[in-house]
């Protein structure tokens, strides 16, 4: 036990003396969460739009006021002639122009149909699409509020309600995703690098020619990173909770258990990588290419698994991160208990056991 | 050996912040001489040599190498010297021929000259069988002989050798020194930096650097007489003890 404590102590010395890695270790989760939460988002906020109101009557004024009061749009200016529309777009500030046809109110009352045209700047297709959806939503909303059963402007109203994430806040998707990526990165890459570093500087030779047992070396290596990963997970959850108002509806205890399980599976992957690489560089490349990319691409973090081609969907099943993301979302958003996620948990446990077994088997008691 | 000075160093000093790595050293090296530049690791040898080959600027003092000032004409200095280090010599994953062609190109040799050099080297070093082998597959001794030849490709006036024969087997080592003697005989000046004192025994003259200053400079024979010992190793030991 004394040996083990001595070993862990040494590992912490390494970690805390390498200021740059330490900064990356704790700076990265914060930066990533903020990045994903604020910058890379499907939501729109404060988009600059212009209005070309050819009718300028009561109805259009009401609609415009509604748009002005929404947080999504800033009405930048009014346009008075058609030829100005393109000019405005070319300036680049305006992302959309709403055009109300002539005699808007009149048409609405007499023909039951009035046309609002939304022209969007599709150089950013996603933004354009979202703007179009938001504007039509606002107008529909206005329409329904008018309570004019006789006019029946929209005969079939599609009502969609979003469960669990009613505002479709993308940050609810990103927090579990980033947490998964960070835990995988910290756990797998850092352990594999720290083990291969001992190989590289030659201390592994001395450790091998000593009474310390291989599993003591492995656990001693892994232990500090379990600790660091847990701290990281806590930081991410706190950021999600306080900055992005991401709820944790389920049991915190269950969430911690699942996180530790995932951390251990990532750590055993790290050990596995270290058994097949001889240099820190190889370990890093293997961790990045072999773990990070699949985690980001195939786990459902960024790209929905359902819309992937079938072979990719099948491959995604062997990615532990996929199951962890499902679990985390279920606990945090749906607030479910273990009875709903035992299958995913079992899969994770199975994978972890497999990785640990392989890495202990592959861990060499000699140099080759 | 004649008395033409090919390297002139006057009060050469290099400071890193408060630390003076090279403390105003002064010495001359003559044309065609094998000059040993000795010192323990950290004595300032490498720093001094870097200034002489024009890749580090002196804090003060002057050095003239092959007729060029190391500070203002460093590009000309680089053109007139060759450099061989034990650590980096050649690309292991290229063949001998590719290495020679590559380095010839770097030194600005024409294609015709490179061809001539390859033919010449194949003959001198008996490379017929291995010219298309990867350098990585050659024994250490061959690599060293080869990288010495590569350092000489552009026929420099001075060659700087950084610990050239450490760890090589005794016979290969002799062959290597014979190559050096031949080159010196042809008029090339050889500047050897090393902390292996037995390498010093082969030099015409040696300087010993301790803590950034040159503490002894003479032929190995005279130094041994002066310190009344049998080997350069003992000269160094005595010198280090005196300074402590």
């Amino acid at each position, binding site marked *: 036990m004394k040996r083990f404590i001595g*070993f862990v102590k040494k590992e912490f010395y390494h970690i805390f003396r390498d200021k740059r890695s330490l900064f990356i270790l704790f700076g990265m989760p914060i930066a990533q969460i903020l990045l994903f939460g604020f910058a890379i988002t499907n939501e729109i906020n404060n988009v600059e739009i212009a209005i070309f109101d050819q009718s300028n009557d009561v109805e259009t004024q009401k609609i415009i006021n509604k748009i002005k009061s929404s947080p999504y749009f800033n009405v930048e200016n009014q346009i008075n002639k058609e030829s100005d529309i393109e000019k405005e777009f070319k300036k680049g500030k305006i992302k959309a122009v709403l055009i109300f046809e002539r005699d808007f109110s009149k048409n609405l009352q007499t023909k039951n149909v009035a046309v609002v045209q939304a022209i969007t700047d599709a150089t950013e297709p996603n933004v354009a699409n979202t703007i179009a959806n938001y504007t039509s939503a606002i107008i529909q909303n206005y329409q329904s509020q008018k309570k004019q059963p006789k006019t029946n402007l929209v005969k079939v109203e599609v009502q969609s309600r979003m469960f669990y994430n009613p505002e479709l806040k993308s940050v609810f998707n990103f927090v579990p995703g980033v947490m998964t990526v960070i835990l995988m990165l910290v756990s797998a890459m850092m352990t594999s690098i720290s083990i291969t570093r001992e190989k590289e500087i030659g201390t592994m*030779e001395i450790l091998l020619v000593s009474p310390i047992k291989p599993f003591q070396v492995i656990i001693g290596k892994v232990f500090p990173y379990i600790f660091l990963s847990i701290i990281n997970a806590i930081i991410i959850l706190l950021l999600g909770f306080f900055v992005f108002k991401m709820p944790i509806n389920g049991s915190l205890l269950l969430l911690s258990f699942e996180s530790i399980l995932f951390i251990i599976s990532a750590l055993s992957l790290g050990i596995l990588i270290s058994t097949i690489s001889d240099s820190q560089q190889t370990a890093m490349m293997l961790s990045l290419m072999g773990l990070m990319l699949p985690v980001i691409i195939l786990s459902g973090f960024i790209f929905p698994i359902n819309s992937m081609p079938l072979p990719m969907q099948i491959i995604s099943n062997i990615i532990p991160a996929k199951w962890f993301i499902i679990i985390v979302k279920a606990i945090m958003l749906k607030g479910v208990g273990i009875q709903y996620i035992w299958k995913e948990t079992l899969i994770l446990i199975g994978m972890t056991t497999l990785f640990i077994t392989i890495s202990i088997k592959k861990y060499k008691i000699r*140099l080759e | 050996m004649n008395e033409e000075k090919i390297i002139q160093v006057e009060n050469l000093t290099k400071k890193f912040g408060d630390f003076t790595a090279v403390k105003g050293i002064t010495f001359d090296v003559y044309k065609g001489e094998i000059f040993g530049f000795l010192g323990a690791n950290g004595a300032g040898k490498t720093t001094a040599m870097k200034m002489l080959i024009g890749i580090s600027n002196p804090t003060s003092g002057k050095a003239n190498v092959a007729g060029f000032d190391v500070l203002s004409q460093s590009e000309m200095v680089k053109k007139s010297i060759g450099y061989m280090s034990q650590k980096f010599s050649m690309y292991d994953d290229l063949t001998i021929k590719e290495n020679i062609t590559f380095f010839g190109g770097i030194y600005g040799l024409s294609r015709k000259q490179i061809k001539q050099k390859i033919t010449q080297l194949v003959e001198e070093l008996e490379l017929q069988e291995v010219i298309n082998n990867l350098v990585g597959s050659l024994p250490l001794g061959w690599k060293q002989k080869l990288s010495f030849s590569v350092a000489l490709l552009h026929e420099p006036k001075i060659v700087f050798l950084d610990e050239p024969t450490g760890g090589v087997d*005794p016979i290969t080592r002799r062959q290597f020194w*014979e190559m050096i003697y031949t080159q010196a005989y042809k008029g090339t000046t050889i500047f050897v930096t090393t902390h292996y004192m037995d390498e010093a025994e082969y030099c015409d003259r040696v300087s010993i650097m301790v803590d950034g200053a040159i503490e002894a400079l003479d032929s*190995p024979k005279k130094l041994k007489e002066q310190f009344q010992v049998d080997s350069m*190793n003992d000269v160094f030991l005595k010198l280090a003890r005196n300074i402590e």
Partner: protein
Amino acid sequence: MSISVQNISKSYKSIQAIDDVSFEVNEGELFGLIGPDGAGKTTIFRILTTLLLANEGNAKVLEFDVKQDYKAIRNSVGYMPGKFSLYQDLTVEENLTFFATIFGTTIEENYDLIEDIYVQIEPFKKRRAGALSGGMKQKLALCCALIHAPKVLFLDEPTTGVDPVSRKEFWQMLKRLQQKGITILVSTPYMDEASLCDRIALIQKGKILKIDSPSNIISKYDKVIYDIQSKNTHGLIHDLKNYSSHYSVYAFGEFIHYIDTNQNFNPNDLQDYLQQKNHTQIIIKPAQTTIEDVFMDL
């Protein structure tokens, strides 16, 4: 017998690293493996420290088999690999404490063994190992290898890249450790260090060429070597190699070592020959045989 090696061979892919090597090291002996880089010294060390398995042959350390009883060997030997293998980001003291703990001991317990080495680096005990000079790193590494009072010490090229003063001190430390009853197997590419060992094995290209005490190796060498010098070394080597009865001609420090095939070799004849070849300041005198001379003639 502390170490016994019988017909060990080891190859990596197509390279035969060591080929049918056998030797024995007695208890309390300072035994040297002398040979250039790539001779197979490190492979022998790694097999004996149980880090590698030999393809053929047996080896025992302290009567333990290197294959079966590897755990017992790992408990009782000290090993200093060729490369400086300590934690550069840990201080001198932390390194030593760490190695003491993993060997299940403390610095205090075996302090008498490392004392005279450790006092030299103790002033720097708060300094990180990476910031030490070559000689100090080497002393620290030795302390770490000794901290658990091993019965056998394996030192793979401990003096490579170290300045002469530190080298000398290091060998003095080895002598003192030997007096404390520790068996030491040391390797070095420096022929001049051979004479500091009790017995040596000369090794090249994976084969042991000779095993004996350094003095025996020299006294049993029956050829007479001459130191020869002239003003023009390059020409001298060339002309000596053209001298009809030459056996070998090797540059050797400021002299050329010359051996003649003729039993009744007369230096005056050679003197005349060299004068004819326009050599000046000629010196011809009998030379001291060194281990290196013997090595080159094997």
